């Protein structure tokens, strides 16, 4: 039975080129900004600056991965940034009062973060709480808890060994970005090659269909939130070790960038779509904007505003891309 369907023409000519550019807009935007910042200040091209960018990208990058997992199952976790501060202070406080080995404090902190994620997941699936509000409440609770625990003081008495990872170099390269690279690879492998990862995309794309196809939707969501909490806590440990300090509002200011990065990188806010390589692009783009603006001596009063504008443009271009590919279908 012949079924004629409108043929989509192969990508050719200027329209095809335009589409290619829009598909890769994060990377083009990134290259363009690097060139601009480099021209404005040659220091931007030095190895030291590159390392700095990658170090700064590590904490944001882990948080962006932590945001992405709930986004992929069509939920959202707003508590990641405050989870980062809270879980690290749990570990650090244990270390300051007792003679526990540093690594045990770190692990307990990370476990606390993962448990918070698990709790979020249980509330959202078993109690059917709306993730936007549940995690918003969790965010406020954890922010408050951090302030209560620290009494507004900054904690700096972590052991040297605890702080090592934030300062260390291996063969002249900082360790932090290596952790980021490992996390990217791990998340990419989980999403692409495991039953869990494949289920994540199915649940985010159509939860009802996934359930009818035999996927345990609630379990997948709980796992996604737990992994999100785990990654936030790892980010929390790295941030504390890098700063060698935990302030009473540790992690404040990270949340919105951590949400913006994956969305710029093509993770759908409606779930089911998004790849790790895009998340990396989004994270690097935001970090380059942030570092670049300070290097070219933009007065700090303007950095946030210009950074916001850059994100705005990136998202506007992305919206154009979506419209263009929808029009072609």
């Amino acid at each position: 039975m012949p079924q004629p369907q409108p043929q989509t023409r192969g990508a050719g000519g200027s329209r095809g080129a335009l589409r290619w550019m829009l598909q890769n807009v994060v990377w083009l935007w990134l290259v363009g900004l690097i060139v601009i910042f480099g021209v404005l200040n040659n220091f931007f091209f030095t190895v030291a600056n590159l390392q700095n960018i990658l170090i700064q990208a590590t904490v944001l990058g882990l948080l962006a991965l932590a945001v992405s997992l709930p986004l992929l199952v069509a939920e959202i976790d707003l508590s990641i940034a405050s989870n980062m501060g809270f879980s690290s202070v749990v570990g650090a406080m244990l270390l300051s009062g007792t003679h526990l080995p540093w690594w045990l404090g770190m692990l307990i902190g990370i476990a606390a973060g993962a448990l918070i994620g698990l709790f979020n997941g249980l509330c959202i699936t078993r109690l059917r709480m709306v993730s936007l509000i549940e995690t918003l409440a969790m965010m406020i609770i954890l922010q408050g808890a951090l302030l209560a625990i620290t009494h507004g003081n900054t904690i700096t008495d972590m052991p040297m060994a605890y702080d090592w990872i934030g300062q260390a170099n291996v063969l002249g390269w900082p360790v932090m970005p290596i952790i980021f690279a490992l996390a990217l690879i791990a998340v990419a492998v989980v999403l692409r090659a495991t039953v869990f990862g494949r289920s994540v995309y199915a649940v985010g794309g159509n939860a009802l269909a996934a359930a009818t196809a035999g996927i345990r939707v609630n379990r997948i969501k709980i796992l996604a939130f737990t992994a999100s909490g785990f990654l936030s806590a790892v980010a929390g440990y790295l941030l504390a070790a890098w700063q060698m300090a935990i302030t009473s509002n540790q992690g404040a200011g990270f949340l919105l960038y951590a949400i913006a990065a994956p969305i710029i990188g093509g993770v759908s806010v409606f779930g089911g779509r998004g790849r790790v390589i895009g998340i990396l692009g989004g994270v690097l783009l935001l970090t380059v904007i942030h570092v670049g603006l300070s290097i070219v001596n933009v007065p700090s009063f303007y950095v946030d505003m210009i950074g916001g504008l850059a994100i705005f443009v990136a998202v506007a271009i992305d919206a154009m891309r979506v419209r263009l590919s929808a029009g072609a279908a």
Partner: protein
Amino acid sequence: MTAIAPGSEAPRDPILRVTGLTKEYHDFAALRDVSFDIRRGSIHGLLGENGAGKSTLVGLIAGMRVPTRGRILLDGREVQGLDVKAAEQAGVFLVTQEPMIVGQITVAENLLLGHWPQQGGVINWKELRRQARRMLEGTDIDPEALAENLSAVNRRKLNILRALFSGGRLIILDEPTAALTVDDRTVLFDFMRKLREQGITFVFISHYNEEILDICDAVTVLRNGRLAGSSDDISTMNSARLSELVLGRDLQLFERRTAGVAAPTEAGFRVRGVKAPLVDIVEFAIRPGEVVGFAGLPGSGAKEFAQTLFGLNPAETGVMRLATDGGETPLPPGPPEALARGIAYLSDDRRRDGLVASLSIGDNLSLSSLPVLSRLGFVKRRAEAGLIRRYFREMGVKAPDPAVSIDTLSGGNQQKVCLGRLLATKPSVLILDEPTRGIDVGVKEDVHRMVDKLTQEGLSVIVVTADLGEMSRVVDRVCIFSGGTIVETLHAPDITKERLLKAAFNRRDARALA
């Protein structure tokens, strides 16, 4: 090519005349040289497979697209090249499958949406209600009700009324009976007949020959973008003739023959004492290779019992026994357990809980088999690729390759993918809930043949369908449900549409389907 029924002559006063209408996209003609007339004050059926050009044709008439060649005359005046707004001003309205209704406001507000009577920006509620009440006269719709509380059929009515309020004279209804029950269909058809008497003209798009024959005065059939046939007098048509025009060949309707198959007496699958919401079944059994139909009105328990077997409407009590694994066990609490036991279920609504539109054809095919295809949580890539290739080919999915997004497929091909996903789990009991709803005649017969072949290999199949003509052709036995229990069972030679109608539905429903 033309198959214009003999004896039909062009109506003298057509509200719409289309001549030589052609629409080309790049190197592909979606519509080629189509000409026909629509008589004023008639209900004109438009029939054809997906991709036959129905949507293109009505899109051109409603001003959503511009024709490449050809003329569209409304009341004898050229109208091609109008946009949607201009077409609506001329009185042509397209009512799509997705009713454009705002759920959170009242029926009255919806009815006059965009035309609320106002004075200096303040809504004149009294006037609004007065106008709405006048429009709704003779219907059972409450103008003050929230639109989201309307039944499916009243939503359809509301959309039609809205088009009329805006000055619609030619209303195009794109598959208005999709998702309507038999009862609702009758109500909608009565409503349309009443409006026809007031001089309103309808174009009625449907997949069902029976509906076209029931409600329409005239019919136009499209095939592969061309006019396959047209008749100005529906009484010269019958269902077989329509199917032939749709498919372009003498369609061999599938008829299941069980006489030749030696029926094993041992039940392959048996359940006892099943209690679940809307379900109360003492006992039900099905043999390997048997096809059993479940029939009944909505809420009768037919669909609910089928879903209980798959764990979608979880059983409070009840045990099952599969011949393949012996002992009695509780019914599956959910789909994962059901699939693991060899019970598979095809959803009645592909878009809602069948396919994952954001995934590729291949990912949709392997979705239910991932646990079997994995080791230590990792999907075995080569095994998965093999499974995808196999079922992509066996189901005859029409797509360049399995990596293509499933969103690009026609409804029939999407259904094949959903079915392929289930067969890949190697079930011993297959439950098909409205398996051919909204898919073309050709694909429908493909699905029936495929299922029939599987039963010869010992698969037990349960079919839930409201299409009784289809039911009578494809099953060995029909269980008729009412009040959550099986009230009557018909066996193969005695299963006719008429018997089914009598058993399952009251006379008013019977009229709508017969």
